[in-house]
């Protein structure tokens, strides 16, 4: 075998090898085995195998290219997820060196046919006293021998999962040189399983043993599917200090409990410090599944880790969340928006007005919390579906699954279709078009009311247009965005519709894309086969719902915000009339509603919070970006003038064919994109709104461009490369004409 370390070591021998090669999990178990504890037989895929696999597929360079594309600290979670998804796809499609694959097969062949295996990470940094990776990396249970290679690759890939990347970044652990040994053991199902801590992890008290016991296999406990019975014992005497759980009768008889206590004590002695044990089976069946030093006693790593674990809600919690969102939250939100809508004009009566203001404020606070607690975690349904799809179908493009999610009934699409209709009415009626153009060009002389009179009386279809327009304005534009209510300013909307008159919005599905969607769905279900069909359909449903919600929640919430905004504006008017506010603030802070309410109730002076002034930075004209890098979110090349969107005021200025530069595109404003020839956005991700719309409109888009709205100016000539994710700014200036300039200095 020469001098290279072994690819595979049997678990019995693992303790003779360094933890860099096999990881602590494997070594700890090997030690237990050696001391006479029963441990399921197994073998370790060493770090050397990992290195051979990554070398064989040239993965490290590909990973680096993804990972250092931009500064990690300026990546958003979606961009980190994108990086992780691409890397996972490299692993999943990679092949093992032949020698390694043969060796794995020969080890697996040592077990009886039909043996189920557990495939778990045993990363070198894992389960040391300084950092706990419990739950951060993947593990797979009940794996058949023929699926081993596939699962080993996925465990390896979990070294680069988003939660692992974020966790290591936070802990300042080295990603560059991480390796991933994998532990494979035969499954040994027993009737009882559990956790045991030889010190109380919540208080750090070392004279206490904490036990969690469950009937069935341990994963039911680890994945929080079932509540365990919890017992606290005095370490030395075995006296029960507390016991609680679902069962009325204890799972363990007194002598079995005593036996467990003694085993925990001897394991602690073996490791020389308090330990956390995963076990299955009792008494003569007692089997050690994992032992590691307790990390939580000296610092709070477990708390931090648990936050990262929420990044990927498990299957069960996502299913529960789906139900809650679909049947409770979204209908509740719609109902709330509609009931506010139905309330009509502001009550003259101050007391009644304040009641309604408070109602809106409380509603705003409640839904804001729901947004963070439920809507954002639920958005992960898309990615969970994506991962499921990729594992099943193994597509060339890891974003192929998006096609399956597209839907025509997003609120934003419904709104855009109405806009399109109004645009068509204008393009079919040159008289109407002319009148609108005159109105928009001449802001001072015609009032909006006069304008509608003219439209209704002097044009053919004017009254129909006016009615539809006002309906759209009141029902779809009653949204709060960038400190204004979009319904307050009909000119912006009218201008957009006018510009749209000569174009078509392609947000409805083409027959071509419907066919593509159907084709992919068929392939997907075929790959799932009859056995997994139900589960495949369920994930697809969750994916679609999550996709629709991502868009709709923003629109619904901004309608809710709009109601609060209008009430706050009115409240400030009333306060001003009463002389209780010096001057109306130019920005209304929605979060400050309790202070406004209190001022009105107690008739005392309201002092608005100081708003941060936007600093206009002095530009260094001699140093400028020439080519910026982002994520290629919609393919194609285009050259055009930049229009940087910094506020709603910029909407009015948009000319068809410009390249729009956003900080973050939100569903509230996507109608403006119908005019764009391309999109640049600071906020990155393959699943953000701009990516989706750009792909549907088939215009090039690049997102994840750091500081896009600061580095690009309106009027700059931009060339977008939507295939490589590049934004080129300005004409190529290469000539050395600057000789002149240089002499001047």
């Amino acid at each position, binding site marked *: 075998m020469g001098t290279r370390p072994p690819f595979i070591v049997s678990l019995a021998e693992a303790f003779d090898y360094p933890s860099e090669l096999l990881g602590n999990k494997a070594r700890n178990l090997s030690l237990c085995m050696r001391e006479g504890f029963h441990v399921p037989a197994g073998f370790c895929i060493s770090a050397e195998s990992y290195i051979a696999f990554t070398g064989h597929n040239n993965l490290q360079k590909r990973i680096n*290219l993804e990972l*250092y594309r931009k500064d990690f600290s300026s990546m958003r979670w979606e961009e980190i997820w994108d990086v992780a998804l691409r890397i996972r796809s490299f692993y999943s499609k990679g092949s093992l060196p032949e020698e390694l694959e043969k060796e794995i097969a020969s080890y697996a062949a040592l077990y009886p046919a039909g043996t189920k295996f557990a495939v778990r990470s045993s990363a070198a940094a894992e389960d040391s006293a300084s950092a706990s990776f419990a739950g951060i990396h993947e593990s797979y249970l009940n794996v058949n021998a023929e699926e081993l290679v596939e699962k080993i690759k996925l465990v390896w890939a979990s070294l680069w999962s988003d939660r692992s990347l974020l966790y290591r970044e936070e802990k300042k652990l080295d990603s560059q040189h991480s390796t991933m040994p994998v532990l494979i053991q035969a499954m040994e199902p027993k009737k009882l399983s559990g956790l045991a801590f030889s010190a109380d992890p919540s208080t750090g008290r070392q004279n206490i043993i904490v036990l969690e016991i469950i009937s069935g296999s341990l994963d039911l406990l680890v994945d929080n599917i079932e509540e365990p019975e919890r017992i606290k014992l005095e370490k030395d005497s075995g006296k029960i200090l507390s016991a609680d759980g679902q069962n009325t009768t204890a799972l363990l008889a007194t002598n079995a409990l005593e036996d467990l206590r003694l085993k925990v004590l001897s394991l602690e002695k073996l490791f020389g410090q308090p330990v956390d044990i995963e076990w299955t089976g009792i008494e003569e069946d007692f089997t050690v599944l994992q032992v590691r030093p307790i990390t939580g006693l000296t610092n709070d790593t477990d708390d931090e880790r648990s936050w990262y674990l929420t990044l990927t809600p498990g299957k069960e919690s996502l299913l529960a969340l789906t139900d809650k969102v679909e049947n409770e939250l979204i209908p509740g939100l719609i109902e709330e928006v509609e009931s506010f809508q139905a309330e009509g004009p502001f009550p003259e009566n101050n007391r009644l007005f304040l009641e309604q203001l408070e109602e809106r404020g409380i509603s705003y606070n409640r839904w804001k919390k729901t947004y963070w607690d439920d809507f954002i975690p639920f958005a992960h349904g898309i990615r969970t579906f994506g991962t499921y799809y990729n594992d099943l179908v193994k597509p060339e493009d890891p974003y192929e699954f998006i096609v399956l999610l597209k839907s025509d009934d997003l609120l934003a699409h419904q709104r855009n279709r109405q806009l399109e209709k109004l645009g068509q009415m204008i393009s079919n009626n040159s008289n109407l078009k002319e009148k609108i153009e005159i109105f928009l060009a001449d802001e001072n002389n015609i009032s909006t009311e006069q304008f509608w009179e003219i439209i209704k009386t002097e044009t053919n279809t004017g009254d129909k247009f006016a009615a539809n327009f006002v309906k759209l304005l009141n029902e779809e534009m009653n949204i709060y965005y960038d400190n204004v209510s979009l319904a307050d300013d009909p000119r912006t909307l009218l201008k957009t519709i006018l510009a749209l008159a000569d174009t078509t919005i392609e947000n409805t599905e083409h027959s071509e894309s419907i066919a593509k969607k159907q084709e992919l769905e068929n392939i997907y279900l075929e790959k799932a086969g009859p056995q997994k069909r139900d589960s495949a359909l369920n994930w697809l449903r969750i994916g679609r719902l999550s996709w629709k919600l991502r868009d709709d929640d923003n629109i619904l919430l901004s309608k809710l915000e709009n109601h609060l905004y209008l009430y706050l504006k009115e409240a400030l008017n009333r306060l001003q009339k009463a002389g209780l506010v010096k001057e109306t603030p130019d920005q209304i802070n929605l979060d400050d509603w309790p202070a406004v309410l209190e001022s009105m109730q107690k008739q005392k002076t309201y002092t608005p919070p100081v708003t941060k002034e936007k600093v206009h930075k002095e530009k*260094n004209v001699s140093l400028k*970006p*020439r080519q910026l*890098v982002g994520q290629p979110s919609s393919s194609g090349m285009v050259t055009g003038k930049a229009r940087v969107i910094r506020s709603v005021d910029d909407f009015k200025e948009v000319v068809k064919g410009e390249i729009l530069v956003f900080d973050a595109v*939100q569903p509230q404003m996507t109608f403006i994109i119908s005019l764009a020839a391309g999109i640049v956005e600071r906020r990155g991700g393959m699943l953000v709104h701009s990516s989706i719309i750009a792909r549907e409109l088939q215009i090039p888009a690049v997102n994840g461009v750091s500081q896009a709205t600061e580095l690009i100016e309106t009027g700059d000539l931009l060339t977008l490369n939507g295939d490589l994710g590049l934004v080129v700014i300005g004409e190529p200036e290469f000539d050395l004409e600057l*000789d002149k300039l240089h002499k001047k200095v």
Partner: protein
Amino acid sequence: MKDKYDEPIFVDVTNGNTKNAMAQVEAEIRELCLEQPFAVLATQGEGQPYTNLISFAVSENLGQLVFSTPAQTRKYDLISKNKKVSLMIDNRDQQLESINLIRAITITGTARILEDSREIEHWSDLLIKRHSYLEKFIKSPSSSLILVDIIRFFYVRRFQEVYQWAPGRRS
């Protein structure tokens, strides 16, 4: 870590990232020019490009770059006939692991052979300070100092991110 979730609906994203990118870029260009001892010099003659590896130093304001060459060299000859030159400075030798970590500067500028004794003293001091082991070579009567007035920097990082900077434009 919630800042990774900058869903804009409730978070003020525009004020989140105010670090001055351009100042950072300028600092990186400066760092590379001051750290790297060697550059590739491109000259031309009769339509034929020609490159050399040189030891160089830059002025504090990054407006000039100086190197030394014996007068009988091809580059000396080419520069005396055509003053337009280009230089490349990069850190590729330190970043074998990832192409994204490589930083490179392309300089365009005009070169001239120094003849004024005070200028020669000033620039040779700077060059010797940077490359003390070359003192004998630089001070040799057969060597000449070449001063490049830098017109532009083209700075590339993260594989494809490009900035251009004409330091002479600063008033």
